[in-house]
């Protein structure tokens, strides 16, 4: 079995890590102390930028650079930790919050100070009840020790932190929908610009980062950017917690150094598909990433290499699909999810997702013509790039990749289903076709 590179998950098995005593005993909150006592906010931002740390929530944007967009000034500024973790296949933030909530809190406070934010929120998906309870308890502990609240460690910096539970919508993980939801409104994405850094929560400047991104912050500050950059590739620094699921023998979260071959993760760590099965395709970054093929497993698992392969690293969730799965079922599964989760605000996503599902259902029933598969493909193209947020694309991209890579299977699937339906109909005496023609 291949090795993990444990940085974030370093002490993850330490009993009681979620309590402040254990976390502090293992050196916790020292990064915060260092940041507050020896660094100016600008220096923290510079250090984060130098580390090359990229967002772990999906888009992979440089964390330090995003923090540097926050305007100066004395207005209320906000930091929102995106803990909505709803992308199918993604379950890494759950682990980080459940096992090591204080590392996240420490990261949030450091990032907030760096960005000049005095109010922070953790927007956690509604289903994560246990994790929300753990976080709330941890925040209370941190507040009692003076790591959260007014005048943190006597530094003059105030960071208030509130854990807010979502109400069960995938779209609320999209950063601007998250803000609307946090404001008590219907969670719909907003038009950008204005970007959250300029006008975010309650119209104030807002920095939004993923749980894993923020959990990396104390590490960067404690060990320094140089240390951090030693792992990973030039453009994908550090380690990544990868959630591996689907047809593998050992699904789970694995921390790896970015840039190792994907095969090492899928086969080495997760054990590959069950015996006798082959990888048919895999999603390298959650269900919204275009699927890649078996041969792509030899590519390095990094932001840049996945993009080069025509897909993306996204949230770092690998879903493995073996050759027992019909591609139409897979496409339907993905499309149904995004149709269900489309907020309905913009036209191409709202109508495109439901149209796609209806067409795929027809293909699945054998009621389509080859022209329908063309239309299906064009509908995906018509969605892509035309939506308000990327949820629409999140369906169109994988579905389109499946059509491109498995077109024959779509056609054959439809044919087979049609024949099966015809046979059934004839058997039941329902077909208008002459009986001998079906023989």
């Amino acid at each position: 079995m291949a090795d993990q590179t444990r940085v974030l998950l370093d002490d993850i098995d330490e009993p009681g890590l979620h309590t402040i005593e254990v976390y502090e005993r293992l050196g916790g909150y020292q990064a915060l102390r260092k940041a507050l006592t020896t660094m100016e906010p600008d220096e923290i931002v510079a250090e984060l930028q130098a580390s090359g740390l990229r967002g772990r929530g999906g888009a992979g944007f440089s964390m330090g650079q995003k923090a540097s967009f926050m305007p100066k000034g004395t207005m209320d500024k906000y930091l929102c930790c995106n803990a909505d973790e709803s992308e199918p296949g993604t379950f890494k933030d759950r682990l980080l919050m459940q096992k090591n909530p204080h590392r996240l809190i420490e990261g949030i406070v450091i990032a907030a100070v760096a960005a000049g934010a005095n109010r922070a929120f953790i927007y956690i998906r509604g289903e994560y009840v246990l994790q929300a309870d753990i976080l709330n308890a941890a925040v209370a502990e941190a507040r009692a020790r003076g790591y959260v609240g007014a005048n943190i460690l006597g530094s003059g910096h105030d960071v208030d932190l509130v854990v807010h539970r979502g109400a069960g919508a995938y779209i609320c993980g999209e950063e601007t929908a998250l803000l609307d939801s946090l404001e008590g409104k219907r969670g719909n994405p907003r038009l950008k610009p204005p970007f959250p850094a300029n006008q975010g929560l309650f119209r104030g400047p807002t920095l939004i980062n993923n749980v894993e991104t923020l959990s990396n912050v104390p590490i960067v500050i404690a060990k320094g950017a140089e240390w951090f950059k030693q792992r990973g590739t030039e453009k994908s620094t550090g380690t990544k917690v990868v959630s591996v699921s689907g047809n593998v023998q050992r699904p789970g979260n694995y921390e790896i150094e970015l840039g190792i071959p994907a095969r090492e993760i899928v086969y080495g760590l997760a054990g590959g598909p069950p015996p006798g099965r082959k990888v048919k395709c895999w999603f390298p970054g959650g269900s919204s990433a275009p699927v890649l093929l078996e041969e792509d497993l030899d590519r390095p698992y990094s932001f840049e290499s996945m993009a080069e392969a025509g897909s993306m690293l996204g949230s770092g969730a690998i879903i493995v699909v073996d050759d027992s799965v019909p591609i139409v079922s897979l496409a339907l599964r993905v499309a149904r999810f995004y149709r269900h989760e489309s907020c309905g605000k913009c036209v191409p996503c709202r109508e495109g997702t439901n149209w796609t599902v209806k067409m795929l259902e027809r293909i699945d029933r054998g009621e389509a013509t080859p022209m329908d598969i063309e239309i299906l493909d064009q509908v995906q193209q018509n969605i892509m790039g035309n939506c308000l947020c990327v949820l629409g694309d999140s369906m169109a991209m994988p579905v389109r990749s499946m059509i491109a890579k498995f077109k024959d299977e779509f056609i054959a699937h439809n044919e087979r289903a049609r024949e099966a339906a015809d046979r059934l109909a004839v058997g039941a005496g329902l077909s208008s076709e002459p009986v001998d023609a079906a023989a």
Partner: protein
Amino acid sequence: MPKPEPKLITFEIDGREVQAPEGMMLVDAARLGDVEIPFFCYEPKLGAPVGACRMCLVEIEGMPKLQTSCSTPVKDGMVVSTTSERVKQAQNAVVEFLLVNHPLDCPVCDKGGECPLQDISYGWGAGRSRFIEPKRHFEKPVALSPLIAIDRERCILCYRCVRFSQEIAEDYQLVFLERGDHTFVGTHDGHPYVAPFSGNIVELCPVGALTSQAYRFRARPWDIEDAGSICTLCPSQCNVKYTTRDDTRVLRVLARDNQGVDDGWLCDKGRFGYQAIHAPERVTQPLVRDGGALRPVSWERALSEAARALARAGGRSAAIVGGQATNEEGFLVQHLMREVLGSPHVDSRPSGVLDPAQARALARPDLTAAVPDIEWAGAVLVLDTELVDEMPILDLRVRKGVRRNGVRLVVATSRPSSLDPNARAVVRFTPGAGEAFLAALGAALGDGRGLDELAGRAGASPEAVRAAADALRDAGPVVVVWGERLSGGERGRQAVARLLDLARTLELAGTEGAGLLEVPRGTNARGLREVGCLPNLAPGLADAAAAGKSAGEIAAAVPEEISALLLVHADPLSSHPDRGAWERALDRAGSVIAFADFLTPGLEEHATVVFPSESEAEKDGTMTHPDGRVQRVRQAIARPPEVLPNWQVLAELCERIGKPAGVVSGPAVFERIVASVPFYEGLTLAELGGKGVRWQERDGAGRVPESTLPEGGLEEPPPLEAADLRLGTAPSLWSGPVVEHSPILRFLLADQRVELSVEDGERLGVSTGDEVAVTVGGASVRGVARLRSDVPPGSVFLVEGTQSENATALTNGRPRAVKVARAAREVTPA
């Protein structure tokens, strides 16, 4: 926030160079180069773009993705394409997506023929349909409210209606429910969407999803015509388009966006009140009292009877002019009175005498704010008026200023205002104590001496007054929107003196964008004042040759000094204080000659001659907006056969009494007005055109008679007299003949309700819903009690102008201490 001054830039679109103000959204800037970009959700009136429909995508050089032109400000040197293959593909795609779930029931859809979805599908769609799946279904149509039907299958979820409710009217009732392709527009809990401005969503809807219950299936676009005019139902004077059919019927009223007046919105009364025009109860023939009842007669008989009665009364005649009279009508009425009958008694103000010097000060161009100033002011003081009831469209302007430009709002009223939640400071003062409040505010803005004592006289909290002063101080230009109520009653003159003093303190006169804006009781109160319909003011705000009696004095002078009453669009029993005095006056007057479109109970009982009035859609003339904009009222449909123009009837009366007015047409009357009102100099009907002209912006403005603001020497406001409960009254948007006679609005008709504080309610053993009687000096008004936590203890509020149990029975221009007690439920005999 000061109004930004944009600079011009040059950009390229579809190969042409176009100049546009920097920062204008591309979709608008394109139009300057005659390039049309299709859109659905974009509507700048609704605030920031939302980017929902994706119809407006364009390609911009240097940007990898297509951009929504509704949200992309144009920049110098930008190169834009709206016709590239990529853009066309996106446009085709969006149209196709929009039609995926659209029922395409155009043949039975009200919107058909004037539908942006049809037009854009035709213009930018691929012209074919590839969607063969089952469509989404909803029950259709259902009543969103008694006024509006919603067909959710047709809805394209463009956000317009919801944004209107959330961000313009701020009634927060309309929301989206569910999500994805199941999303639909509705209200929380499915209760009806009833709100003062709800009808605007029908006009905003780009498809036939929202339709007017009153207009549904009444016509198709090729059956109808548009006729521009103004709404005459309140002083907002919103610009409207009447949709007419066969030149005889008004089928619909739409907004005719005038930034200077209405910003493109209408209230539901203005939008749906047209039904009264065609109500069977309308007076459409001359009537004369005969054997105790009013009976239809020939014009000849009505005219001769009226002329004879007026001639007989001569100087013992008096005229009450209602706010719906046009400038032309008002001018001729005062001419008839003063020049023909030799009577100085003409009044158009229900609330008492206005001092001539003060009237001139209030008319000073440098002291008058224009409506759009509200939006860009530093601070707005809403004083003694409830805008949503008295000048509804200004309510939306104030909200817009606060929401978009951070205007500091101060609300100072007796009755809780619907604008309170938007205000930086809220002051409650005792009904009728506006003068004392202004004195206290003056003290707070000055050195603070005497503030506590003065606030006490106003029944207001000194802290609240101080907060108001803080919000107004150093705010930049201040606009004071004040209600006529402030200037009414016994101490009206002193209150106006305080108002002018405030204007001086806040330097309204010297400040661009600052000023006073009166919210009068009558639609055309300002115009009527300026053309001479006040007892002490001749046309042009000049001193009248002989001072006449005010409305209240007229009532008191019947029958000793006055024997004939001319009521022009007025029934003092419903609009004037001291109903008892007016009942006696009408009872005793020898003749009561009325111009009316409906027989109110007062006219029914007392009028001796009734001339049928033109409805607002049948007349030509002018009115003057409270901010000085002279606007045209234009005839949209033919008059009923027996209705004559009012100006013509008035001219005929002059002629019959022996002194012809010398006018042969409506426009001729306007010319006479322009000749008599120096500051209207140079105005022509052609120039007024569709949008009107503020006379302050014309050369004649310099010809307002001189007046100075008072310097000190102000009287002390009187102390509050001890009282258990003090009476305040307020009109309701939903009272009056238009609401009574428009079937679709009748469900909104205001009944008398008695608003009390919770404390007083408990003390008196009265709960919400109880029938109570409010009594003073032997008169009593019954109504249903409503306990409100925001009503200050010690005040009780009644509605003015209700059909029955009108609050005017209890008012007399002085503070009134009333008693409230539970009334036994009266059994009304069937």
